[in-house]
């Protein structure tokens, strides 16, 4: 070791104290969820409940009305289900669908991390929902909170055999890094408390991690999981059709705070390669470095990306090698081509079929003329394969046998479901987070607004002749970045009602961050700017040049070469 490194010292942040006093994530959750006069739970439990996969929210659309009516806000719970690689069986799908329609708000959300999200569950129904999940072997443990979250895995419709193997690693990593506390079982599943046997968290310890932690596995040439946005990004190295191991990238993350330059999005940096047999252990060792050196005094500086930037990538590699007991191998070659999904039918190498449905912003619900939720439900009733939720918030009906393909195709037609191919390429490459009305962090609309905005952008696109040009566009309601908007070629991050910061210049394949182009602008300005830029793109681009590269080349924005210069060189007029 050449350099002395230690975790930042100082007064622990409030959440650290909550964790400390929680008795391994129990807190007073059990009592709080029984209290009958209010739909809310105390602050400490709202922090702890995240480790159980749930956020307390309220329908912000109703806040003022309810206040006037002498009612407390409509407190409700969102539950995020742990589905490594976005995989769910038809039985699990049907359970989620039923729960959404009986105790949820009648919709399901496919998240940008390939998980189900169910919204609008009132306090007293959360336990019911947890038990429904358990009945089909699902859980929400560690879907949120300062632990390793849902492990992402490319949906990869083509290489059936390697997908199965890589998915298996995703599931192993997820299982291995689950908290071991019995709190979840005791509170939600009426598990027995075993007297005298204290909980032990062999990996996390009693303080868990300083902040959330995310792992994603990508299978080149698809970077659908946005592997560089992860705390640990694993890039599968497949040679001669055989999975060998993974390149390892560390320290990516999207969140920042408006106006605080010391917070920034960052991309994971590749540090080497390990063979597949060692990958679970490698993830554990990386995570423990963050556990030991992460910042526990300031939550805004607690993500792994800041730890890496503080200790330096070289020191980190040395420490990892030390913990592993061997050196990680040199990085192997891997080339990404896109982040989007392959819509419609594709055939896997094992002869099974996959159909990728276009689901705008991942929201599954029935609307007039488009009974999406009902259609998927009917498919789930006959489907013998599985469902895979994609990182682009779409849904793959996976592993359809040739015999079932016709039945499923008929249901797709009967229910007017779509592969989205008739939409503009920009819409097919769009992502929006949930935002209003349920997300407590939201500053502006996202999911409810982006589709309409794209309809207006479509007019510009069509005028410019760019209908089939794939441009990654993303919108987040706040700078925490659930939609990974800082990695979009056109990115919007909410600033206030109807106001967004506009970012440009990220790469198409997700290996370069964007740069702020304009601050705090409204729709009129957004459309005016895009009209100019897209028309220039249509006429001035080079062969095969993507929009994100184009705006950098012509100097509309400077390239962000590292998260640490994300805020630097913003245009003067911003």
């Amino acid at each position, binding site marked *: 070791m050449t350099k002395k490194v230690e975790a930042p010292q100082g007064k622990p942040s409030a959440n650290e104290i909550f964790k400390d006093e929680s008795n391994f994530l129990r807190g007073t959750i059990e009592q709080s969820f029984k209290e*009958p*006069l*209010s*739909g809310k739970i105390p602050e400490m439990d709202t922090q702890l409940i995240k480790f159980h996969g749930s956020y307390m929210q309220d329908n912000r659309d*109703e806040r003022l*009305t*309810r*206040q*006037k*009516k*002498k*009612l*407390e806000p*409509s407190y409700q719970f969102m539950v995020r289900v742990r589905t490594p690689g976005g995989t769910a069986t038809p039985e699990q799908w049907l359970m989620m669908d039923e729960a959404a329609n009986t105790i949820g708000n009648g919709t399901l959300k496919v998240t940008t991390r390939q998980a189900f999200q169910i919204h609008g569950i*009132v306090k*007293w129904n959360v336990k019911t929902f947890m038990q429904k999940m358990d009945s089909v072997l699902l859980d929400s443990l560690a879907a949120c909170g300062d632990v390793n979250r849902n492990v992402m895995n490319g949906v990869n419709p083509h290489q059936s055999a390697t997908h199965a193997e890589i998915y298996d690693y995703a599931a192993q990593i997820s299982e291995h890094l689950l908290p071991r506390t019995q709190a979840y079982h005791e509170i939600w599943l009426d598990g027995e408390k075993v007297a005298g046997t204290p909980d032990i968290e062999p990996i996390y310890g009693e303080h868990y991690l300083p902040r959330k932690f995310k792992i994603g596995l990508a299978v080149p040439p698809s970077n659908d999981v946005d592997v560089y946005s992860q705390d640990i990004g694993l890039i599968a190295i497949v040679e001669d059709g055989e999975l060998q191991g993974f390149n390892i990238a560390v320290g990516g993350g999207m969140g920042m705070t408006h106006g605080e330059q010391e917070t920034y999005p960052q991309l994971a940096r590749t540090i080497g390669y390990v063979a597949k047999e060692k990958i679970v252990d490698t993830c554990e060792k990386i995570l423990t470095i963050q556990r030991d050196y992460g910042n526990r005094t300031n939550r805004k500086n607690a993500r792994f990306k800041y730890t890496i930037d503080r200790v330096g990538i070289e020191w980190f590699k040395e420490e990892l090698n030390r913990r592993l007991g061997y050196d990680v191998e040199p990085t192997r070659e891997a080339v990404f081509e896109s982040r989007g999904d392959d819509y419609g039918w594709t055939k896997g190498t094992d002869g099974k079929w996959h159909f990728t449905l276009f689901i705008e912003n991942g929201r599954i619900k029935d609307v007039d003329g488009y009974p999406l939720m009902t259609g998927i439900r009917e498919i789930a009733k006959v489907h013998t394969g599985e469902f895979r939720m994609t990182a682009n918030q779409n849904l793959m009906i996976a592993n359809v046998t040739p015999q079932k393909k016709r039945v499923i195709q008929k249901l797709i037609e009967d229910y007017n479901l779509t592969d989205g191919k008739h939409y503009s390429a920009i819409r097919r490459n769009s992502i929006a987070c949930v935002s209003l009305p349920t997300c407590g962090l939201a500053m502006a609309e996202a999911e409810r607004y982006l589709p309409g905005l794209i309809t207006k952008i479509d007019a510009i696109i069509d005028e410019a002749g760019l209908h089939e040009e794939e441009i990654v566009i993303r919108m987040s309601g706040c700078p925490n970045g659930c939609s990974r908007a800082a990695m979009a070629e056109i990115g919007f991050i909410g600033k206030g009602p109807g106001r967004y910061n506009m970012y440009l210049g990220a790469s198409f394949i997700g290996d370069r961050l964007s740069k702020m182009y304009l601050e705090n602008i409204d729709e009129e300005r957004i459309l005016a700017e895009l009209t100019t830029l897209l028309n220039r793109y249509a006429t001035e681009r080079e062969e095969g040049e993507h929009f994100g590269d184009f705006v950098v080349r012509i100097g509309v924005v400077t390239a962000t070469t590292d998260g640490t210069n994300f805020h630097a060189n913003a245009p003067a007029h911003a």
Partner: protein
Amino acid sequence: MVLQVENSPFTEQQVKLLNELLPNLTDNQKIWLNGYLSAPQAVAAQATAVLEGLQQVSKPKTITATILYASQTGNSQKLAECFGAELAQNQVDVNVASMSDFKPKDLKKLDNLFIIASTHGEGEAPDNAIGFYDFLHSKRAPKLDQLNYAVLALGDSSYEFFCKTGADFDQRLSELGATAIAPRVDCDVDYEDDAAAWLTTVQQALLKQSGQTEVATQTVTAPAPTSTYNKKNPFQAEILEKINLNMDGSNKETYHIELSLEGSGLTFEPGDSLGIIPQNDPALAAQLVEVLGFDATAQVTVQDTTVTVLEALTNTLEITVVSKPLVQKLAAFTKTDITPILEGDFHAYSYGRDLIDFVTEYGPFDWTPQQFVEQLRAIPHRLYSIASSYTANPDEVHLTIGKVAYEANGRARTGVTSGQVAERLEIGDTVSIFTKENPNFKLPQDADTPIIMIGAGTGVAPFRSFVEERAETGAEGKSWLFFGDQCFVYDFLYQVEWLNYLQDGTLTKMDVAFSRDQAQKIYVQHRLLEHAQEVYEWLQQGAVIYVCGDEKAMAKDVHEALLQIIEQQGNISREEAVETLVQYQQQKRYQRDVY
């Protein structure tokens, strides 16, 4: 002054004894004797001037009478007290009492019994009459051949069992051999004139017993009113606030209304009611005029005022209820045979029907607009339990009004007042109101007495007033609120206020029952039973129980739950539990405001 046979009702012997005694009495002895002799009048004197001195005792007083009232909202009680005071002025030895305070065994000792009884709900006797009513209708009731009686019944003719309690008393007393000295009078919502006439008739009949023919006509009035506004002269209160307390998605619309009392001089206590004199839906009145085939501008005279028939039917007369007495009157104007509805299940017929239905179904009628309007009664006022404390909100009164809306016979129907409040009255409009005491629903005098409040839906209104009052006055007694409605998310009336009261300790405990939030229906009575032991402990500590809300949908089941709790927790028999609850009622430790 020296007593003589001529100037006193005494015999010669008595005059002699008195004249020997009186001059030798000290002042203190005279005062004491004065009180001793006038004690029997004390009750009668509640609402009148106290009888003065020995002089008055010296007048003829050979008649004794007992006036019992069965009162839910206080009307019967007030009438009984006025009547008592008037009889006392006419030298009747009168005893005015609540039925719950009267020992039924004493019936045999009475000469004259006057009953003033209201009916509430579906023909039920008021809470303070239940014990007496049951006794009189039981096998234990004695023969009452010695007894003269008269009954004044109060009710509302829009209910099927109009004045039933009074009628039952009349019939039963007659069966027991008592003699009616005046026919029973059944009063409708506007009872004042009919009640006064009955009172005169009874008084004359009674005084005949003593050969006295002159009736003192001096009317006895209630304590000097603090306001010039009353039912006859309602105050036009401005609406300051109107909030539908239910969220979209609820099956209900419950309006929180705040009215200004500024300049009215009106005040009230927690537990009191507010009367609203509503208007009919103008659209409904217009439709009625149309089906009647009248010219809407035809002039009619109603209550000594000449207006158009449309105005009369909009502002003055009741058009939304088809009551039996009304149908009997209207029958004279049509050749269509109306006997089937009069002799059939009238309740089934009248439910959900208004005059538009009746006129459409049983015409053609042969009448003039004037003849038609003369058959109708005035729009009755509606009473609402006040939802605010005057102390906490001076010059304001708050109400919690549930909109009544349903469909019947192919048309959407709304309650007259609740429909007006929900659909036609807005902030800044005015509404005709008066205050109405409810002596049978009052916070305990002792602010340290624990209270248990049980209310569902709009039944929570008076408890808002109770808790506001206790917060304002710093009462330290424990309080426990049971509230029920359909859905937690949509229907938790005044939720934020209760949470605040719980936090600051004004409210000690609260339990809620939301019937539709789970597969099996859970109501307030279930919550009571869940907490049986603690409820019983509170009762042992002297807690007063208040129940407010729908009789059939709630109060009945709450009553049963209380019986169960007292029976099981007290480890006593069912009969003893019933007896305990009756005692609570008599002691005003179990008060109900049910409808």
